[in-house]
């Protein structure tokens, strides 16, 4: 299951950090952040609760880059 979210972040390296943090979140198979399009594509593990997982993704992203937002 793949889903794309709009994000907001100021610097390209921060986008990379978000990508790494999101990918490491439990329930996420793969996350790709596109800094230019300001989008995050998240591929979930089978049977993952998307809403719950995205909450954790946002939390983990905020840890690596405080000034970021994911529009869930």
């Amino acid at each position: 299951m793949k889903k794309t979210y709009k994000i907001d972040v100021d610097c390209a390296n921060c986008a990379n950090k978000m990508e790494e943090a999101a990918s490491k979140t439990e329930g996420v198979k793969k996350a790709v952040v596109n800094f230019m399009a300001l989008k995050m594509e998240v591929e979930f593990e089978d049977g993952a609760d998307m809403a719950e997982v995205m909450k954790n993704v946002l939390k983990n992203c905020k840890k690596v880059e405080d000034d970021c937002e994911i529009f869930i």
Partner: protein
Amino acid sequence: MNKKQKKMLIRIIIAGVLMVTFALVPIEGWVRFACFMLPYLTVGYDVLWKALKGIKNRQPFDENFLMAVATIGAIVLGDYTEGVAVILFYQIGELFQSIAVGKSRRSIAALMDIRPDFANIEDENGNLTQVDPGEVPVGSVIVVKPGERIPIDGVIVSGTTSIDTAALTGESVPRDAAENDEVISGCINMTGVIRVRTTCEFGESTVSRILELVENSSSRKSKPENFISKFARIYTPAVCGAALALAVIPPVIGLIAGTDPGWSTWVYRALTFLVISCPCALVVSIPLSFFAGIGGASRAGVLIKGSNYMEALSRVKTVVFDKTGTMTEGVFEVEGIHHRDDKTGKCTCQAEGVAFSREEDDSDHPHKHGIDICDTCKGHECKLLELAGLVESASSHPISRSLLKAYGREPDRSRVSDVRELSGKGITATVDGIPVAVGNAGLMESLGIEAVPCHEVGTIVHVAIAGAYAGHILIGDRIKPEAREAIDLLKEKGVTKTVMLTGDIKPVAERVAADLGIDEVRSELLPSEKVEAVEELLKERTGKGTLAFAGDGINDAPVLSRADIGIAMGALGSDAAIEAADIVLMDDNPVKISKAIGIARKCLRIVYENIWFAIGIKVACLILGALGITNMWAAIFADVGVMVIAILNAIRALSTKRA
């Protein structure tokens, strides 16, 4: 500039003015320190704040944290001006980056801003109401006024106009359109009011499909992008480690050796390392280059589904084409009419001394459409074509339609009776009471009529009247006028091998290939054999060279997805092709293939320029900094200056005129 950026600009200006002023005023001691704290905090409070948060979140390599350490370190060492300047320039760089990225984001979005906002629906009284295009059902009539964007695909029911297709195809010459012509959504209606009967819903319209494709084009990353993310991950820790080593090891060696450890010198050098430790220039300029390249390509009518395809396209060495619809028009046309000569028993095409000419007169003669005709029927009604047209009038086969088109008038069906369609052979019927047979050599054979083979290559339709052979009509598929140029341009671009695949018969395929200068041709292939042929060619390619397959997307979707790069041409009408292809050419001009390669090459060149330039300058500054030759001023240039230059270079990828 948005609010955030304006606020930043004001802070930068205030801090800059304060810094210069205090640097010129001869103050000493703690007053001087207090004075410099003013601009430092004005411009850098958010960096310090974020640095604190970074510490709390255990992010030791957060660039805010590193910048804070470098500047506070400089201030502690007494280099107030440098400490403030570093943070000032850092913020200028961030601001520039944010403006440049925002600007290119907007300009590329504007490039693809083909989304129509409304459709005009006319009521009984002729009043127009604007409705959401998503609410227009299939088959309704919409009105498009001059200057408006056509919201939904359809067919013109009334009105003539010229249409600007530049937003879709990159073609700047407007196209004329009249009643019964198809129009594509996303194009701009320029001169006249037209009424259009919609042929699909908005969601399935060309414009919606293209927007979807462009918006989702970016999740596939290229090798340079992945390299940069990995590089960024190790670069910062490595530079920080080096900085720490530089601050500690030489002074300790000095201590052991009993000489002056020179702590402040080494710490200062270490701090310059921290200033260069941010990989920003690289990290922002690479995706920006690809983004600009993809944006520029879409303006030229080339949709690229991801930066990985951009990269693969830049390394194309083999290009495989489908024949019909890619190299040829895909529309069958009568090319010649060859009567049987009663005296010799041969067809006119084989008789000696009969000249062929293309007659371009204005008469109603069916031959005026640029068809090869023989002397015997010059100026006459062509019996052969007339009979063939009448017999085939009920059929919808492309060959029947080409015969009718060449016949050039409405067939009088009352003259035709007893129509029998023999699948795979042809048609027999009675015209004006005379039995007529129109079909291939197989049909003639089954009727016991001896057919005369044609000397030319193409699809041959034989005609027999009252059981006697009357002659044949040559039908061909015209080679696109740009096809030859397209192949030449590809070779110029360094494509080493061109291959044509076709289901057509060998002589036709070989003639087309020879005309165009294609290296290799494989004919009489079934669709599944095309996939096998591509797989064979994939095995043959060497090194880093990639293989691109270009087709019109009709029943070659499996081949499109099998090739390294699948290019669908003129794919505006085919969902399957847009789905399966990696690159979509909006019009069906094969020259666009080499254009796409040119765009990809330019983009990749910029990407590599940026990688080498940014890494080169940073490494040079690191070495010079370690040796104490440069200072923090050079370090801040290596950080901010390089970023600015790399961004400006990246934006170049947007221009595709000379690609």
